[in-house]
């Protein structure tokens, strides 16, 4: 595993009396698949929102690729190669699957102040878009409109959009959300194929998936990171067991 790509130091965020992030520190190494787990309300999604730039932290800093990105807007972080996917699929409903992917590719090919050429006919957009759809198992659905997709396919496209710009790192917010066992397994298989090709921070509730995929796991409780380590170390960790008491994954 390489040097740290994402370094989070002392992140704090509160919503009124609710503490969402409390002195949250985290290091994600280049090339690893790092899972972020924790009970409901532990502040995982809030943490992800601050990393992606949709939420401004009250305090602390975020370093990405040796650059302080704490105060950068969302689109600038994406341009630096820090992409994200959403827990609730956030797609372009009127576009086809291919158009969705092509738009995501376009975001990383310089400015879009190009007014004349038909975007749909550009190989420079089409080829990489088809490539990412292939990787996420959607190649045969390229021509379908998004509104006609099944839930599992929408989740696959959701991740595909995050990957389309060839980011250095991707933040995946519960890619298995709302899926049955078969869908989860399929998504796990797809993510396994991505592993090692880019750095991934995975927020996920599905413990089978987390333990099958993660190189390292961080555990979030009440907005603070209480443990980081290999899946085996986390499984044996007493504090984690207490936090997760009763969860079958740790029983």
């Amino acid at each position, binding site marked *: 595993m390489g040097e740290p790509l994402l370094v989070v130091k002392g992140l704090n965020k509160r919503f009124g009396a609710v503490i969402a992030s409390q002195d949250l520190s985290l290091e994600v190494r280049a090339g690893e698949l790092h899972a972020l787990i924790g009970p409901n309300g532990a502040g995982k999604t809030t943490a992800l929102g601050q990393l992606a730039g949709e939420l401004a932290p009250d305090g602390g800093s975020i370093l990405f690729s040796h650059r302080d990105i704490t105060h950068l807007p969302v*689109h600038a972080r994406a341009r630096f190669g820090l*992409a994200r996917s959403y827990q609730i699929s956030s797609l*372009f409903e009127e576009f086809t699957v291919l158009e969705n992917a092509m738009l995501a590719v*376009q975001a990383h090919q310089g400015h879009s*102040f190009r*007014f004349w050429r038909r*975007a749909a006919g550009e190989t420079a957009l089409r080829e990489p878009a088809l490539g990412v759809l292939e990787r996420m198992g959607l190649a045969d659905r390229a021509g379908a409109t998004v509104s006609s997709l099944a839930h599992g396919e929408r989740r696959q496209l959701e991740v595909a959009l995050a990957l389309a710009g060839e980011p250095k790192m991707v933040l995946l917010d519960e890619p298995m959300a709302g899926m049955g066992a078969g869908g989860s397994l399929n998504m796990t298989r797809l993510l396994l194929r991505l592993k090692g090709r880019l750095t991934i921070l995975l927020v996920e509730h599905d413990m089978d998936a987390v333990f099958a995929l993660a190189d390292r796991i961080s555990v979030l409780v009440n907005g603070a990171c209480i443990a980081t380590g290999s899946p085996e170390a986390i499984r044996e960790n007493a504090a984690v067991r207490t936090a997760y008491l009763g969860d079958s994954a740790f029983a």
Partner: protein
Amino acid sequence: MGARRFSIVLVGAGLFAAIPPLAEFFGEPFLVSLFSRVLIYALAAASLDLILGFGGMVSFGHAAYFGVGAYTVGILSHHGYEGTPLLEWPFELAGTSAALLAWPGAVLISALFAAVIGALCLRTAGIHFIMITLAFAQMLYFMSVSLERYGGDDGLLIWERSAIPGIDLADDVTFYYVCLGALASFVFLAGRLVNSRFGMVIRGAKQNERRMHALGFPVYRYRLTCFVLAGAGAGLAGALIANQTEFVSPELLHWTRSGEILVMVILGGMGTLYGPVLGATALLLLEELFSTYTEHWSVFLGPALVLAVLFARRGLFGFLAGGTRSDG
């Protein structure tokens, strides 16, 4: 474009091209000036469709850029006719009736107003955006009322139409075809635009702004550019209407005018570019028809609009052409 859409557009274009000979044949020359008006409003509506139908920006102040374009032509022509300078400081600027100066000037000034107003309005979204575009447009309306030098409330007569060397704009038929050319060019260029990379960004931002940011698009500057282009299109329409009626007045910028243009787009079909042309045609012809019977003609318009919104979500054009996607 599907075969059905294509044939509808072709038939429509053919009908517009045939209006002057038909008017002559039936001995109704007023039809030429009526349809000139239709074409000009169609241009204004198509320009609004760029931001409304494709960009999801509900501007309730589009008449402002229409009016600014008209006043630019009117004021330039006024000074040209009087032989007085428009500006003495910081540089001398004379008035003019040359279309090749006045019209691009109108487009530029409208674009400039759209840039300033858009830059502020696009900081907001939703209902706030609607209200603030309306507020700015009304501000310009009252400004035009206060232009005592140029007729204030009463408006400004234009003594001569703009002139293009070799083309007699004073001739109504020639002027009609110039309007038709302007509309056709605008719709063609806008059609290229909405399918270009730029267009994909605008349409993507309409569907899912949050995701656009997450993908790495600085959405604001694309929207602002689109807003300015739409303002420029309305400015050209304004330059034409000033010549068509040979008169400009604050009426052109009034909020009811913005409402009318908005109705043309919605009635004809948002996000289709051709729809607004159809909408402008339908609205102005209905107005012409009903207003000979009653001055309360909008009583009929209201229900027609409700029906259009309820039963043809893509407006008249969507109803005729079928299809559900905004693919220009």
